[in-house]
């Protein structure tokens, strides 16, 4: 019998601890499939961040280091500088990458550090129980914006791809989503490209994946996927924000 669906080799057998309907699991799978397809499992080193995905080191079959909150790109810089022949990626949430780690994000991009960043934007701090994130939408209710995010008082969400597209060093920036099959396919292609870029020495490549947090959004998994379409994507439009090697250059 032909096997038509199997677990990627780059994923371990450890059961994922993510909540039902959380798209962290899909994103893990996409990254693992890409690692399999590129045949880079043996030379890949991952950097886990602080957030719901902190235990990514248990889920991927590759060497892993767990970084302090926000510091994954700096740790990845050290790993990559130590051995440029290795494939180095970070896996970070929005609180990690766009609040406490903003400086590390911007500067690793500015240095065109030859690493791959998987940025999971679920508009909330998942792990700590649903506080307002730098990416929380205007008027969105969270534990620390119980009356809705009041942009007058607390400021506006940060659009990471748009922000980084002004950083000369950033080589490839794309925002994708995993809320339906078509988008999942595109997300995988973008992740593959972000890894391939590193193999080709092209420098800093970041894929922002618009993700869900049904638990802290207070929505069923199905409703959460709908929320991505109706609320998240209008604020965070999908697409390639920068690709310095593409024909016609940058968007």
């Amino acid at each position, binding site marked *: 019998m032909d096997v038509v669906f199997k677990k990627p080799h780059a994923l*371990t057998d450890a059961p994922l601890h993510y909540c039902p309907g959380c798209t962290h699991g899909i994103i893990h799978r996409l990254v693992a499939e890409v690692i399999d397809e590129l045949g880079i*499992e*043996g*030379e*890949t*080193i991952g*950097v*886990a961040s602080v957030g719901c995905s*902190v*235990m990514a*080191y*248990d889920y*991927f*079959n*590759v*060497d*892993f*280091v*767990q*970084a*302090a909150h926000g*510091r994954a790109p*700096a*740790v*990845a*810089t*050290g*790993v*990559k*500088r*130590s*051995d440029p022949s*290795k494939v180095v990626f970070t896996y970070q949430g929005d609180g990690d990458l766009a609040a406490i780690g903003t*400086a*590390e994000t*911007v*500067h690793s991009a500015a240095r065109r550090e030859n690493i791959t960043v998987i940025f999971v934007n679920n508009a909330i701090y998942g792990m700590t129980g649903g506080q307002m994130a730098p990416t929380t939408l205007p008027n969105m209710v969270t534990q620390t914006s119980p009356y809705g995010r009041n942009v007058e008082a607390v400021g506006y969400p940060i659009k990471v791809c748009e922000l980084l597209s002004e950083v000369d060093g950033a080589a490839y920036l794309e925002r994708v989503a995993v809320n339906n099959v078509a988008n999942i396919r595109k997300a995988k292609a973008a992740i593959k490209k972000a890894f391939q870029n590193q193999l080709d020495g092209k420098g800093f490549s970041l894929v922002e994946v618009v993700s869900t947090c049904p638990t802290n959004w207070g929505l069923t998994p199905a409703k959460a996927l709908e929320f991505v379409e109706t609320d998240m994507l209008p604020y965070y439009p999908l697409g390639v924000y920068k690709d310095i090697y593409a024909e016609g250059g940058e968007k």
Partner: protein
Amino acid sequence: MGEKVLMKGNEAIAEAAIRAGCRHYFGYPITPQTEVAAYMSKRMPKIGGTFLQAESEIAAINMVIGVSSTGKRVMTSSSSPGISLKQEGISYLAGCDLPALVVNVERGGPGLGGIQPSQSDYWQATKAGGHGDYHNLVLAPASVQEMAALTIKGFELADKYGMVAMILADGTMGQMMEPVEIDDIEIKTVDKPWALTGTGMKREHNIVNSLYLKPDLLEIKNFERYEKYAAIERDEVMYEEYLMDDAEYCIVAFGISARVAKNAINAARAEGIKVGMLRPITLWPFPKDALLARADQCKAFISVEMSMGQMIEDVELAIKCKKPVYLCNRVGGMIPSPEEVLAKIKEVGGAN
């Protein structure tokens, strides 16, 4: 044997690090340690190493974590305010049992403080400046030659025990020029089977991590780490004694304070006062037993420090408060003069 060359303390650290096989340096500019970075920025590109000026001390220490997790020797240097920023990373290094060399060329504090020499980060260095139960190996050089020697020793100890070795120097040590001899050393490498080198599809994946959500496991990790610390306290204590054989008074001082104190001791001896010195070279592990061994012989101890009195507590604990311990100090970037130390010796002599 190498030849003697005239070098600044900061440069001696950088050159010694290179001789010790360190090929990765990350830092952020701050006075009075800038020469370390300047030296590294010149040398590293020529020997296939990495010099990277990070966006902050926080980023720099995390880059150190990255290199260290791959098993290679790596260092960063800074001065007091920058070392404060590195504390989270130092705590992670401790929690991951990763080796690294961290250099603190101290200046006066707190806050932005000043840029003149100080020893007021003693507590931060020796008592775990970041969160959690841990120690750093803390080495306190008192000459340019020792800046070099302890840098090499620091890398070796860090690798041997899987932890941070910190050079706790001060602005004078960093800026002072002295002849120094740095031999080409034989690099003692340590097996690092835990290092992240890629599985090569040949082994289980390695994980460098400090997270243990199960409290019983985290407790075991802490207990194990403290067994390692106990071995270090037993085996790695370093100190120098000066004129202690017949001493009735014992000065305890490290770094530049010890050099000043030596002059004062010589002057006091000329006047017939029997005073000597115990100079800790490792501040952690602290030479507790060596001090206790002098507690019956001496009438009093004097802690000479460029802080409001930080090491003095360790002296009191070491001698189990058997004898009085006096403080002779200047702070804020001021250095005690031999005359001030001599006056203190006489005052203590008069009272005891």
